[in-house]
């Protein structure tokens, strides 16, 4: 090998890496949060926040949680520590974790500040948080079902709204259970419509979804303003009551949160379980995921890509229809214009945050539900923040979570692409 030159390259180089830059930015954000806690969320010394964990009716009583105002100094110190550490060392794999912990500390400090000198029922807020997360979780699950077969489903918002509408109308006429079935069927038929548009006619998936959303919004708004206002009996359904699960519902805090809820909450948890089992432990789940990742490969192995997409997008519609019925049959019993108010889109964010996994989507939905219920409760506490700003909380949480925490998560490889047979 006389004419061969081996190049030896072992010298270390200083490289400007993407992760290091991201870690520095996150560090800066955490330090800013620490300053925010010190100067804005400042608690008058001596005041403390009281969080009630049980009500007088509960079988098991536990004492209130009293947090002294000094907690916020500790919180600020922790935030500053995390931020400086990020800044100096570069976080690598700790970056996302630090930001997550930092946000949790911020939320606690915020609660202490808002409740300082007052009392606040934490358990009932958490219970409301679970309730608020239901439509988001079901919307996210609908997103998972359709995007796993590579159909982008913007239409979830419309499907939720259609489900809410059908639930209210049919529920008023024929009773809650039939109303629920009607909501699921209507949601499913919009799923089917989306499948026809994007699978058979290869329409742009985003546009097809937006069209469905606008169509549903238009029709339901028209009927509710022109017909329901006139004939009120058409929009007065019986609401599904809470079902207390014996013994389990007596557990402090967790009991009211998880075991004293209505059909929709249990339904969401059960559906997430079923969907997880289906997608990752069954033959058809494997095929569905293959269709989402590499439809051509699935096709050459005899999996019918079109049928698979039709079936799953329709199921996604049914899930969303069920989630939509929550707004009327699971909550107020009445339909109002645009009552879903963007929950479908937040459901999509939950799906992305949850990395296209049913359990992930549910966890993300719980975070969004928490943000939502916090702002409702705080509006009652008379904080100096205008309630309009508080109402932004779920959306700000969405932006921070999707942009900051998730970073680059990987959708199914064929997501959004129509499949053309050769």
């Amino acid at each position, binding site marked *: *090998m006389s*004419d*061969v*030159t*081996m*190049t030896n*390259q072992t*010298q270390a*180089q*200083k*490289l*400007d*890496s*993407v*992760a290091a830059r991201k870690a520095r930015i996150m560090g800066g954000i955490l330090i800013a949060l620490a300053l925010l806690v010190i100067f804005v969320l400042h608690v008058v010394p001596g005041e403390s926040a009281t969080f009630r964990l049980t009500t007088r009716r509960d079988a098991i009583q536990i004492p209130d949680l009293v947090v002294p105002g000094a907690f916020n100094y500790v919180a600020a110190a922790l935030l500053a520590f995390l931020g400086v550490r990020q800044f100096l060392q570069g976080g690598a794999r700790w970056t996302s974790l630090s930001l997550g912990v930092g946000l949790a500390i911020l939320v606690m400090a915020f609660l202490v500040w808002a409740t300082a000198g007052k009392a606040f029922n934490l358990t009932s807020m958490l219970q409301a948080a679970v309730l608020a997360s239901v439509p988001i979780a079901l919307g996210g699950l609908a997103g998972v079902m359709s995007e796993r077969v590579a159909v982008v489903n913007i239409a979830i918002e419309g499907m939720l709204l259609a489900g809410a509408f059908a639930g209210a109308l049919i529920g008023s006429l024929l009773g809650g259970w039939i109303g629920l079935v009607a909501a699921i069927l209507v949601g499913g038929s919009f799923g089917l419509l989306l499948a026809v548009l994007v699978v058979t006619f290869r329409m742009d998936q985003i546009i097809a979804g937006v069209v469905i959303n606008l169509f549903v919004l238009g029709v339901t708004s028209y009927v509710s303003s022109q017909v329901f206002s006139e004939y009120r009996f058409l929009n007065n359904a019986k609401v599904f009551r809470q079902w207390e699960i014996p013994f389990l519902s007596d557990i402090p805090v967790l009991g009211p949160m998880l075991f004293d809820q209505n059909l929709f909450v249990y339904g969401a948890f059960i559906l997430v379980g079923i969907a997880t089992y289906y997608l990752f*432990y*069954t*033959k*058809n*789940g*494997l*095929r569905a*995921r*293959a269709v989402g*990742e*590499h439809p*051509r*490969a*699935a*096709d*050459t*192995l*005899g*999996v019918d890509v079109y049928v698979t997409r039709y079936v799953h997008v329709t199921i996604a519609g049914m899930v969303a229809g069920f989630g939509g019925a929550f707004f009327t049959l699971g909550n107020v019993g009445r339909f109002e214009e645009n009552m879903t108010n963007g929950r479908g889109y937040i459901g999509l964010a939950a799906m992305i945050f949850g990395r296209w996994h049913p359990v992930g989507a549910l966890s993300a939905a719980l975070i969004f539900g928490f943000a939502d219920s916090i702002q409702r409760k705080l509006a009652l506490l008379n904080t100096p923040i205008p309630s309009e700003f508080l109402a932004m909380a779920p959306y700000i949480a969405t932006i921070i979570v999707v942009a900051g925490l998730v970073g*680059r998560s*990987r959708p199914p*490889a064929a997501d959004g692409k129509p499949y053309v047979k*050769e």
Partner: protein
Amino acid sequence: MDVELRGITKRFGSVVANDNVNLTIRAGEVLGLLGENGAGKSTMMNMLSGLYSPDEGQILVDGKPVEFDGPGDGIEAGIGMVHQHFMLVPVFTVAENVVLGVEPTGKMGYLDMKRARRQVEEINEKYGLHVPPDELIEELSVGIQQRVEILKVLFRSADVLILDEPTAVLTPQEVHEFFGIVNTLKEAGKAIVFITHKLHEILEISDRVSVLRQGRITGEGYPKDLTEADLAEMMVGRPVSFTTAKNTATPGRTMLELEGVSMLDETDDRVLDNVSITVRSGEVVGVAGVQGNGQTELVEAITGLERIASGKITFDGENISHASVRERHKMGMAHIPEDRHKSGMVDSFTIAENMVLNNYYAPEYSKGWAIDWQKVAETAARYCVDFDVRTPSVFLPGGSLSGGNQQKMVVARELERETKLVVASQPTRGVDVGSIEYIHERLIGSRDEGDGVLIVSSELDEVLGLSDRIYVMYDGRIVAEFDNTDGKADRNTVGLAMAGSFGEDAA
């Protein structure tokens, strides 16, 4: 199992892809199927796998006529296809990919992965494939992925295996191993169809050869009676010269120099690791390596398409480490990109428009805001003549040209101006033999005019044939440099370096 194609004709619109083709495939035999891109090989094989159905003619399996009308039908009859572009789900494990579509299941559609794994191991054992059943596909090398594809068709108990350009993505050493597997399969009584355009491989592995040109069988025979020249003539329809005639290089001043250049991808992995190379005027420097070892990134670094993380790039004495693409271009750097559809041309633009994509803004074409289309068309027409781009009009979409003519169009645009350095990446990918010869001549021509020429190619023969000096890339690094004056570099040694090993056996 024997398969016979009898009088098969397939048309797409007015194009006849297969014209009265007769072919016999026998058990325990390797049939080499040779033909250029677009000769109709893939169409024929897609009919065997059931993806298309023939317009005329019959397919007989063991003497009995069969009709296929879906992609699953071929494999059901025992004919399995290993596609050139792998049909594997990258985020699935090997076992999941293998069983997809014919999954072993328990109650309620439960996917029995344990059984799947066992079945994969059994086939592994039987044919000596050594594929790890629990690895994710995306973690495996291309060579192993190919074995997964073979495993897939064996799992479906195929007796006929069609291998479409199986060696295109392999190193010479992997090819050697792959041939071992093919022989094992043959001894086990499988019938094998080996599709390729590489002549020496056909002669090495097949028992019988059929040559396809423009949809017709133009030659048949046994390897022992044939030479590469015979095969090439059958394939192209005229005698072909294999080596590009060229004089000994007379290198001049340093044209391009990279010093310790590194590049990171989005996840901060080093895709270029401390790369140092030089290209002098009047010489062709080749970069050999298996696809995906940093060649793409090297070209992106040189042409300015991607930011480098460290190091220095000098072009004709000037530091261009952070110069924009257009600045480099204006200094006389020509770039023939590796994927013309992605970055070399706009398919839906006319040939004239494509010809000025790199300098439409020059004063000769642009008057103020407007482009002088008359002038552009004239220039394009002249380029077409100069570079043998065969087209009835320069106003046709670039995408309507054949692959070879598209590539010549890109080459014309890049070379028909004052250049100092030509960076050519995969310059002859998907191009017919005639155009390959022509493009090679033009690249040597640029060298003889005093340009530095850098050729990046995963076809080792191309690098060996053209270059005066050769670098080998492996895992983002330059692992070896060879002097190739008068073709004195040894094919085997270069091949070993491509596999990242020196002296000992390649992995």
